């Protein structure tokens, strides 16, 4: 059966497909979107739009292939479109949010934190460093390290060559290492 037109009425099967997709992959998709965008409001919009696309294009999903790869590809494309749409505005917001915070000035912080506290503080530089990467670099790092996809799978999701994935990932990791160190020091 060919793809349905958007104006065709929804079937129970189509609705059930969407319901199952949200139930099984909603949380992962939202977290992926959150890591890409770095904020909850955009992650909500992105996730919602991605599932609308899933609903409309449900017939194009090939059973037996990875649904997660498919929806991540949708999210990635939507995110790229959104970045293009608000180009300029997006980049203005990042540096301010991600500049190292000058917490205690030159004065030493008098905190000897416990393990959980240290863990929590460790994750803050990582969040800031991730957010400071370019959107393309952030995508590949998230897909490679957090979602644990292979170069080949990342290339399919992002829509680029394996060579591009490799070079983006190398650059991203080098950059990330520097940024984490800088934010940890601050």
């Amino acid at each position, binding site marked *: 059966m060919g793809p349905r037109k958007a104006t065709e009425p929804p079937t129970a099967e189509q609705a059930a497909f969407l319901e199952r997709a949200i139930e099984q992959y909603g949380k992962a998709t939202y*977290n992926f979107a959150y890591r890409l965008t770095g904020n909850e409001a955009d992650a909500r919009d992105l*996730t919602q739009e991605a599932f609308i696309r899933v*609903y409309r294009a449900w017939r194009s999903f090939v059973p037996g292939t990875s649904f997660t790869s498919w929806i991540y590809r949708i999210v990635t494309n939507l995110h790229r479109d959104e970045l293009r749409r608000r180009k300029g505005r997006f980049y203005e917001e990042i540096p301010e949010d991600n500049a190292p915070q*000058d917490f205690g000035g030159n*004065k030493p912080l008098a905190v000897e934190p416990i393990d959980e506290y240290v863990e929590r503080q460790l994750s803050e530089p990582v969040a800031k460093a991730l957010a400071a990467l370019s959107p393309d670099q952030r995508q590949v790092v998230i897909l490679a390290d957090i979602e644990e996809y292979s170069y080949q799978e990342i290339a399919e999701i992002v829509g680029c060559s394996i060579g591009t994935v490799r070079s983006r990932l190398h650059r991203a*990791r080098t950059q990330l290492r520097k940024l984490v160190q800088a934010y940890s020091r601050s």
Partner: protein
Amino acid sequence: MQHPKPEQLTDYFYAALAPEADAAVHAHLAQCASCATAYDDEAALSSMLRRFANDSERELPRSVVDGVWERLANERPKARMAAFLGAVMRPFVAIPAAIAIVLAAVFIPQYAAQRDLPSIDASYYLQDHAAMAATVPFGVRSSVPAALVSNNDDDNAPATFAIANDEP
């Protein structure tokens, strides 16, 4: 084998090398302490990212799911609606249908309200108000110290200074 390049080490970490190259790097790491350290750095960066991912994991907000269904409900095809209206406008269909719609309009919202709508505990509002109002430095809800801000950039005063505790 010569020392692998940093890129090769990363590819090795992601298991993206061809089998021969993979075996060569594997053998080299077993006998080269500096490359083994560099490899551990690669692994540490990834494990830090995964730990961050675990720590920052979020639940899917209910509003996202509701938003999807609401939007789809609003996108019902207009063409079918026109055909449907044409059919129901015939009197022998329209009159009973109108009665049914009126009854549904009266009873369904009440039923839905009782069955589906969540309620929010008043404590939430009181606590959220208290939390946000506490940021007004000398407001009714503020606590001690009243205003906490990072140091002023243009202020070079030391963070602490000697103060006699015994008042004159």
